[in-house]
């Protein structure tokens, strides 16, 4: 439902409506040993999304799996033309195990789109995206948006081994330059990543950097950003109850103007300024 009209009342921060709707599963298949792709048939009103936003998913309940809270999940793809919403997820516990049981044709209740997405400022022409593991799910829609805005995108994708390198083809199709790094090949060290990034900066320059997840990558990009004065953004995770800003459970600490401030990942985030973020 939630087709409750927002009438003439004050627009809360002029924000768009948040919808709670039942979607239908189109498919829910393993992508490799660790990840699954969930494709939903979704009404267009919830497909007015920004890269970096997320949905809050109501997991199905069965005899053996009884998750209670919703589960936050980044938008992996949104396609208003096809009426599709995609999530790429890793089965880690009760909630994601329950989501993995969904079959084509099942109903699935989602809440969103939620949170604040990535910015691509007009003068950011050369974009760098650095991600590891499932973090690519969060950054993928950024590639689509970059192409729409006609920006140049380089994606450094790190994983345990080739088989876990997700979405490379997807990034390539969107015209991105992809640099795959793996633990297996010994190419994923921070040092190597650092020298690759320095190379890119020296070569054609980088106007903005985007990442999510990994602490090591965060620290590296903060160093690089400071040194070369390159702005950046990071998508962060935190446990959530409401997902829309009411409960204050999803706070993380940030460094802002020398002080430590708490911000809600679901509302002020999940995308934050790279330099303000504090690793954990």
């Amino acid at each position: 439902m939630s087709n409750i009209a927002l009438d003439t009342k004050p627009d809360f921060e002029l924000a768009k409506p948040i919808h709670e709707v039942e979607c239908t599963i189109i498919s829910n298949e393993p992508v490799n040993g660790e990840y699954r792709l969930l494709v939903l048939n979704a009404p267009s009103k919830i497909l007015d999304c920004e890269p970096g936003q997320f949905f809050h998913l109501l997991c199905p309940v069965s005899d053996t799996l009884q998750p209670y809270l919703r589960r936050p999940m980044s938008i992996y793809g949104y396609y208003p033309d096809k009426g599709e919403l995609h999530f790429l997820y890793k089965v880690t516990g009760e909630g994601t195990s329950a989501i993995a049981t969904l079959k084509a044709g099942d109903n699935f209740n989602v809440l969103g789109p939620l949170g604040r997405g990535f910015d691509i400022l007009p003068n950011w022409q050369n974009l760098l995206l650095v991600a590891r593991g499932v973090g690519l799910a969060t950054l993928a829609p950024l590639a689509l948006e970059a192409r729409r805005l006609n920006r140049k995108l380089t994606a450094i994708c790190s994983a345990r081994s080739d088989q876990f390198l997700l979405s490379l083809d997807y990034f390539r199709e969107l015209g991105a330059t992809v640099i795959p790094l793996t633990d297996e090949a010994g190419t994923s060290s921070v040092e190597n990543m650092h020298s690759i990034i320095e190379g890119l900066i020296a070569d054609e320059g980088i106007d903005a950097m985007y990442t999510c997840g990994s602490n090591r990558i965060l620290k590296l990009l903060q160093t690089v950003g400071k040194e070369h004065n390159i702005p950046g953004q990071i998508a962060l995770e935190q446990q959530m109850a409401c997902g829309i800003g009411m409960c204050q459970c999803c706070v993380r600490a940030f460094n802002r103007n020398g002080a430590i401030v708490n911000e809600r990942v679901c509302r002020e985030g999940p995308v934050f300024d790279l330099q303000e973020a504090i690793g954990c």
Partner: protein
Amino acid sequence: MLDLTTQIGTLTLKNPIMPASGTFSEDLAQVFDLDILGAHVTKTITREKRSGNPTPRVCEVRGSMLNSIGIPSKGLDAFKTNVIPFYKNYDAPLIVSISAGSADEFASLCEDISVPGVAAIEVNISCPNIEEDGKAFAMRPSTTEAVMRKLRNATDLPLWAKLTPNTGETTEVAKAAEEAGADALVVSNTLLAMAIDINTKRPKLGNLMGGLSGPAFKPIALRMAYQCAKSVEIPVIGCGGISTIEDVIEYLIAGASAVQVGTATFINPPIMVKMVEGLESYLQSQGLHSVKQLIGSVVDQEASDGLVFMEAAP
């Protein structure tokens, strides 16, 4: 004509459905028109800025949740500047929840928040009484009465006392609050509970323990609401585990004059709207014309006299 209104002291609410403190904020305006609600209840505020408890602040337990949010607060001034004006755009009365660690600080905050735009003050006396032994004011009749008297003298606005389930003296505390001038009781806050991650052996909450809310808590809070409604004359506002229209009806039958919905909004953000609609259809289907016909309609007969005030044997 169906009459959904309910009376909480001098306040008439257009329907008995309102949010519970800490589970509601301006953000919900993005989900539905907040004027559908009987009242708006804010997250508890303190006078000073506070940052709240360490994370993780919530965890899931079988069919419910624990929280140890604490009371992060932007402070009184920020509240007056940013929050009160927002709610002035709505007709629904604004109920401000406040808290403090000592009775005097509580009273002075109560006085300072008694400003235009605020329709009633909910006093969260389920917070620790820092001057005494750290037990919440509402755990004992004596500390309840003492803090409520000071609060009563500090404001002319209606005072709603929010009780705690962490006591063996529910009815005595309810009577003490009434005695000291409360206009209504909110029954209740969360119940102290705990969960441990067996893999890490760490408590699942950063704060070790936290409050149980949600469906698992309903039978306990319903029992308290019933006990309170039987022991006091002032209205009782039921709160605890309400997730469906059937739960709303159960509380009204038990004697609650209105209800607060908390955790259910996290799972199902537009649920309060569905409850208002559901209440209307329920009354219609039962041939009732007013919510007031439901309130306290429990058929408990003689049984109630002897038993309500005696803690039942297992």
